[in-house]
């Protein structure tokens, strides 16, 4: 009988213990591989904004790799620990700790090799399946499945490092193995917990303060774009959560020990929960972060997706619009009427709003592609935007249409020369406008008094233009009309002299449906990447919990066997187990949801502020609720299985 024979024999006998470790490793590899195939998917990369997608995938891969280090290390440690007694016996029989490490290494090589095979094979199958399903659900066109050698190489490379790291850590751990310690390892697993309230409160205070600070940072336009501030703040939140979790056990103990009666009555539960927090603080912490990622990753893209209609509505107040100016887009009334008449959905409102496309002198000019801004008179402005502003002679009102905050160089109080006339800027802020910013490319429009407008008009006859705006009964059914209008306008523009011909590329027919379709397409891709990430994290979090419960079953059974002999009734045992499981299943969810909400709060401030806040929060709540629901199902299933195992005697 050779040394390797022992290792092989062990492998057969301990199959169950190996299985969970093996599954954890395979799962991590599969997960990583699925993302790696996305990273190297050509059609996906060429599809849209290359850099953003690359960054998202790169981040995802990093997160998965980090997660794998933790996850596999955890599985590995649990696996090695479960065998301490066996190692102790080997050592009493004369094995050196070097031999033990050799056994560990041989066994691990088996597990690692087989996890690579399983992980990669299942990764190939699942990534294909998964891309097909997601692409069809989200109606993503042009995404083809491709397997690249790079994704294999990357996965193998990264996980070689991960396993090397885990084995090195394990080696440090098993460097000085003592027979006595090994043999009594199972007995010594419970550490004494001191009752202390202060560290827990401190952690909680840090958490609350950092969350409050995060809200303040999010609200502040200069701070929320400062990465240093944001990262420090997020790290502070994590620290607060960790300290709270790490000291929760001691705090619970301290709080309840004051009251002797309730302490004694709940001594089993209290010690159970405190030791749960103490033993599992790292797991609960990591699960909290995973949960926050799940909430964030799932809620934000779906909110954006569902907001596509609203955002396109905000960006495009009119269902269809185009500007005719400088002789461009000069469609005859008859032709226009003909097109509108054949529209599948009835026209409800049609406006012709006259404006002047006037050049202006100001450094703001660099941000306007046409080097001109549309100018309308205050009566027309109030009429078509349902506003009631007053602009007197010599004044100009700057209505900002674009989404980005800032006044684009036109500050209130400054002077602006428009069409040769000097005017004082009264206000410069986000305000409604008669058209979108796209039909006549500009980030703001100007409003002047009726008198000034007349004067400007007679001085700049060539700059007179008209916004044609149309509202239909059903804007989603306007594609045909848009196509016809675009064709008609194009035909018209082909007739004009080349001097202004370039204008027709910038002054086009704009529609809400087009904007909406564009947004949806962009967000779909976002969902595709992040929601799946959230889903995978959900699975990962679930596996960690399941694995934890699984490894604890044996010692729990021993414990409840003892209690059975003393006379614990099944109902009481069930009560304790239920509450104990509630802690491990739901405390990460609570911490995670709080963090998830704060990340989403931050996110809304980056994308658009108050306008989209409500939708984001509603979606986050839906996701949190759904998460609690799923977790509850998972909780009940695990509890059933766990109780069946642990309370066999009862």
């Amino acid at each position: 009988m050779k040394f390797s024979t022992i290792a092989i024999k062990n492998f057969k006998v301990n199959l169950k213990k190996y299985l969970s470790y093996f599954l954890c490793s395979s799962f991590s590899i599969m997960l990583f591989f699925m993302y790696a195939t996305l990273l190297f998917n050509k059609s996906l990369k060429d599809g849209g904004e290359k850099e953003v997608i690359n960054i998202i995938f790169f981040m995802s891969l990093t997160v998965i790799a980090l997660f794998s280090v933790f996850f596999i290390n955890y599985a590995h440690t649990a696996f090695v620990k479960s065998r301490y007694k066996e190692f102790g016996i080997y050592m009493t029989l004369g094995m050196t700790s070097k031999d033990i490490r050799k056994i560990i290494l041989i066994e691990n090589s088996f597990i690692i090799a087989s996890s690579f095979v399983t992980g990669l094979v299942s990764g190939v199958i699942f990534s294909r399946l998964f891309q097909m399903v997601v692409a069809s659900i989200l109606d993503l066109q042009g995404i083809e499945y491709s397997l690249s050698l790079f994704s294999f190489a990357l996965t193998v490379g990264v996980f070689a490092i991960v396993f090397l790291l885990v084995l090195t850590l394990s080696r440090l751990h098993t460097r000085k193995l003592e027979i006595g310690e090994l043999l009594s390892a199972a007995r010594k697993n419970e550490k004494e917990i001191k009752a202390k309230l202060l560290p827990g409160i401190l952690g909680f205070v840090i958490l609350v303060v950092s969350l409050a600070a995060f809200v303040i940072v999010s609200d502040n336009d200069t701070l929320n774009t400062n990465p240093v501030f944001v990262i420090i703040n997020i790290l502070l939140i994590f620290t607060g959560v960790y300290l709270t979790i790490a000291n929760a056990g001691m705090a619970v103990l301290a709080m309840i020990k004051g009251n002797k009666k309730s302490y004694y009555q709940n001594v089993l539960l209290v010690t159970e929960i405190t030791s749960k927090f103490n033993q599992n603080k790292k797991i609960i912490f990591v699960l909290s972060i995973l949960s926050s990622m799940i909430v964030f990753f799932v809620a934000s893209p779906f909110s954006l997706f569902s907001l596509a209609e609203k955002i396109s509505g905000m960006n495009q107040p009119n269902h269809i619009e185009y500007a005719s100016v400088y002789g461009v887009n000069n469609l005859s009334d008859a032709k226009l009427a003909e097109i509108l008449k054949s529209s599948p959905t009835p026209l409800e409102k049609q406006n012709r709003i006259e404006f002047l496309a006037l050049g202006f002198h100001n450094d703001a000019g660099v941000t306007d592609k046409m080097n001109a801004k549309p100018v309308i008179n205050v009566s027309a402005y109030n009429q078509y935007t349902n506003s009631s502003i007053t602009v007197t002679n010599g004044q100009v009102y700057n209505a900002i249409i674009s989404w980005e905050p800032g006044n684009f160089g036109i500050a209130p109080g400054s002077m602006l020369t428009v069409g040769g006339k000097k005017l004082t800027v009264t206000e410069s802020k986000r305000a409604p406008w008669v058209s979108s910013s796209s039909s006549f490319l500009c980030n703001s429009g100007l409003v002047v008094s009726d008198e000034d407008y007349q004067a400007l008009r007679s001085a700049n006859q060539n700059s007179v233009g008209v916004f044609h705006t149309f509202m239909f009964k059903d804007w989603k059914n306007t594609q045909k009309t848009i196509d016809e209008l675009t064709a008609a306008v194009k035909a018209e523009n082909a007739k004009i002299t080349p001097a202004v011909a370039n204008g027709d590329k910038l002054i086009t027919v704009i529609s809400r449906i087009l904007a909406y379709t564009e947004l949806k397409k962009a967000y779909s891709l976002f969902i595709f990447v992040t929601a799946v990430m959230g889903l995978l994290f959900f699975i990962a979090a679930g596996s960690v919990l399941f694995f934890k419960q699984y490894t604890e079953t044996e010692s729990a059974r021993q414990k409840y066997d003892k209690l059975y002999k003393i006379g614990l009734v099944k109902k009481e045992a069930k009560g304790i187990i239920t509450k104990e499981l509630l802690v491990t299943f739901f405390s990460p969810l609570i911490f995670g949801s709080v963090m998830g909400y704060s990340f989403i709060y931050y996110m809304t401030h980056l994308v658009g502020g108050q306008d989209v806040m409500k939708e984001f929060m509603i979606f986050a709540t839906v996701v949190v609720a759904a998460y609690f629901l799923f977790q509850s199902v998972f909780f009940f299933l695990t509890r059933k299985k766990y109780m069946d195992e642990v309370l066999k005697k009862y």
Partner: protein
Amino acid sequence: MKVLNTKNITKVYGGKEDAGSTRALDGVDLSVEAGEFVGVMGPSGSGKSTLLNILSGIDIPTTGNIEIDGRSITTMSKDELALFRRQKLGFVFQEFNLLDSLTLKENVMLPLILDKKDSAYMEEKIKEIMSLFEIYHIKDKYPHGVSGGQQQRAAVSRSLVSDPAIVFADEPTGNLDSKSSNAVMRLFTKMNTERNSTILMVTHDAFAASFCKRIIFIKDGKVCMEIVSKGDRKEFFDRILDCLAVIGGEKNEI
């Protein structure tokens, strides 16, 4: 007064009466009076542990009836049995069976806690019992921080804390050296004489058994012999060894 009375207990493992089944107990009748200190001895595989498990309601007999403190435990449900155990029975096990997550004090208190007793009463009770067994000064330590003998004393204290009708002890000296064994057996004697506790102890250790007042020998699942102490422990010890020799126990084990 009879505290424990059994009639014709049998236990068959692995299906009834087929070829693969094992008859662990084969019609055991025994009775224990209040205040008695009874030992059950027998060679390995004689059915000692099965008997104890059945008497204490942890295992269920195939046939037969067991009455403890006037109540038949064979008809009880599992939950009723659990309640009965924590109120009427005390246990001392070979492996102590202390919970690692609780202090010695909390471990001792556990049966009372399960029974939702008043905390002042519990404090008083454990003070009395733990002082009696000289572990009150280490009451706030955890099991892994004290010696095996101290752990066993805590286990003994726990078995008495609810003033049980009878204490069952399963090889209570099995994990201890001879000095600690001696100490623990003196505790049992103390329990028996000072507190007038009824004790039924299963052991294969003749030295430990010599502390008992009466010893029942079982072999192949049947009661085969019974001896009663005349007061002199040395003389009783010799008689135990003789009996073991007769029924084929481990004689050379002291």
